[in-house]
């Protein structure tokens, strides 16, 4: 690496060395991956766990008696245990449902728990900074049940505006909020919101898609009721997600998708659903992907989520400071200016340069940033933006990434000057 490296408290260079994608050269430059909020780059251990699964242990799970079917089942159920430990599920693996992503998890929440428990006039309170995954399923449920979907406003400080929250909580049966905004980087006060929800007799759901990979998550300590996240944002594979809820809540949730695996019995006149997580896992699950997720969790545990959080915090402080200094206002960060309760997501608004052009120019430097509305259109509207160019950090990020980002942003600014 040619450029001077400011060393942080965390040895991210080892993580980078573990990450095959980091060897990519794009447009003659080494990859500067700043799109972890969109999807993370898996370490070799994850990729190999998937290959090893297909090479040595692949078989369909459940109901198998032969050796490799048992191995596949152990890998699959072992991942459930790994997830339960990772998020400190009080009821263990029996509370962990495998889905295909955060989005499917929210559909499960809305269309199983929501459809069974919410009636016309009941309120689901989300926030203006939610990802569409935590908005559209509620709109869909509204169409069939007549619930109300209400939004907590976001203040000019890019944080939830809780000044009027007690009035907003009126009639609320579920409060559903993101752990960390994928646009602003804002980290929401989950413990406080859980207490608020419970004080009002509501349940509390968390969109953990961002927070799972960048902060330690303890559902028991936070006292939350539902958690959704995706493997691909936490160094794991695509095609796999998690829905977690407390055992008592899960036990009463009606089936969602129907098919094999989720039944106890099927007759020509009807069916009886299975109990436990299985009830919500219709069809052959994403088996190889669970091998990858287990490996990702082992890897993150090896790093220590506290260290990951601290590392990304330092990167964020550094980047916020330097972006401000280098561009004296011509590059605006849409999100809290202060790194407290804030993750490493930097949505950039470059004066006079459209985010697509920013991303295009940055690509010539091998820099990966994502332009667009980031599936958070209500939030974009709130701030009068059509799009931003978003740079986001992962455990493999280094201050040298920020160096290249700044170099490339300089080119964008001057090209359009």
């Amino acid at each position, binding site marked *: 690496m040619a450029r001077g490296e400011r060393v942080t408290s965390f040895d991210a260079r080892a993580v980078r060395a573990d990450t095959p994608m980091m060897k990519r050269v794009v447009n003659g430059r080494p990859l500067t991956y700043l799109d972890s909020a969109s999807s993370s780059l898996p370490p070799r251990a994850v990729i190999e766990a998937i290959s090893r699964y297909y090479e040595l242990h692949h078989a369909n799970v459940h109901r198998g008696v032969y050796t490799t079917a048992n191995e596949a089942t152990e890998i699959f159920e072992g991942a459930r245990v790994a997830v339960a430990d990772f998020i400190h599920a009080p009821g263990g693996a029996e509370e962990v449902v495998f889905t295909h992503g955060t989005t499917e998890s929210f559909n499960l929440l809305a269309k199983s728990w929501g459809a069974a428990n919410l009636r016309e006039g009941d309120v689901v309170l989300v926030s203006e900074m939610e990802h569409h995954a935590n908005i559209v399923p509620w709109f869909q449920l509204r169409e069939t049940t007549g619930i109300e979907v209400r939004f907590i406003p976001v203040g000019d400080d890019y944080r939830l505006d809780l000044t009027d929250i007690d009035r907003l909580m009126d009639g609320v049966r579920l409060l559903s909020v993101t752990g960390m905004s994928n646009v602003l980087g804002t980290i929401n006060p989950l413990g406080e919101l859980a207490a608020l929800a419970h004080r009002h007799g509501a349940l509390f759901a968390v969109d953990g898609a961002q927070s799972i990979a960048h902060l330690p998550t303890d559902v028991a300590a936070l006292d939350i009721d539902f958690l959704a996240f995706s493997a691909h944002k936490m160094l794991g594979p695509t095609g796999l997600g998690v829905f977690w809820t407390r055992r008592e809540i899960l036990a009463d949730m009606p089936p969602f998708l129907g098919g094999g695996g989720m039944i106890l019995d099927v007759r020509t006149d009807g069916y009886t659903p299975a109990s436990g997580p299985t009830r919500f896992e219709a069809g052959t699950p994403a088996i190889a992907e669970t091998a990858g997720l287990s490996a990702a969790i082992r890897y993150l545990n090896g790093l220590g989520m506290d260290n990951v959080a601290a590392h990304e915090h330092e990167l964020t402080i550094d980047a916020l400071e330097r972006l401000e200094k280098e561009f004296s206002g011509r590059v605006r960060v849409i999100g809290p200016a202060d790194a407290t309760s804030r993750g490493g997501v930097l949505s950039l608004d470059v004066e006079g340069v459209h985010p697509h052009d920013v991303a295009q120019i940055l690509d*010539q430097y091998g820099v990966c940033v994502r332009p667009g509305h980031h599936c958070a259109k209500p939030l974009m509207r709130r701030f009068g933006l059509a799009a931003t160019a978003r740079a986001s950090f992962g455990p493999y990020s280094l201050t040298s990434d920020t160096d290249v980002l700044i170099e490339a942003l300089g080119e964008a600014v001057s090209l359009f000057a």
Partner: protein
Amino acid sequence: MTMSNLDDLYREIILDHYRTPRNRGELESPPAVRVEGFNPLCGDELVLYLVVEDGVVTNIKMTGHGCSISQASSSLMSVAVKGKSLPEVETVMERFKEMMTLKERSLDENGEEAPLDLRSLGEIAALAGVVKFPVRIKCATLAWKTLAEAVAEASSN
């Protein structure tokens, strides 16, 4: 590092039309035909107003927002079609479409020497570099697709 690709994309003429778009604004509709265009992948939005009188595009205006390519493309398009007869407009649209489906190779082989049909496009030829950036083609074509709709609507009135 060579930035030649970038230079192909962001030619001076494109930056100029982006910074100073021609034919911005609204027209009263009717008489103008009003058509909305949307590129869901990028969020580019365009509202196009077109007046056709006696088979001639007598006025065209646009509002909306988008990246430099979509903005420049719509500005260049408006200049290219304003005052033209409908058959002439059809020809320009056809030529533009051909340009957008050119293989990157054929562009490179010709280097700075644009092929004949490119030169006949005039300023619009500046958009040829877009084909090296396939994801941006939708940005360049948005204005033209919207124009095609507006022409069809105007012709059916």
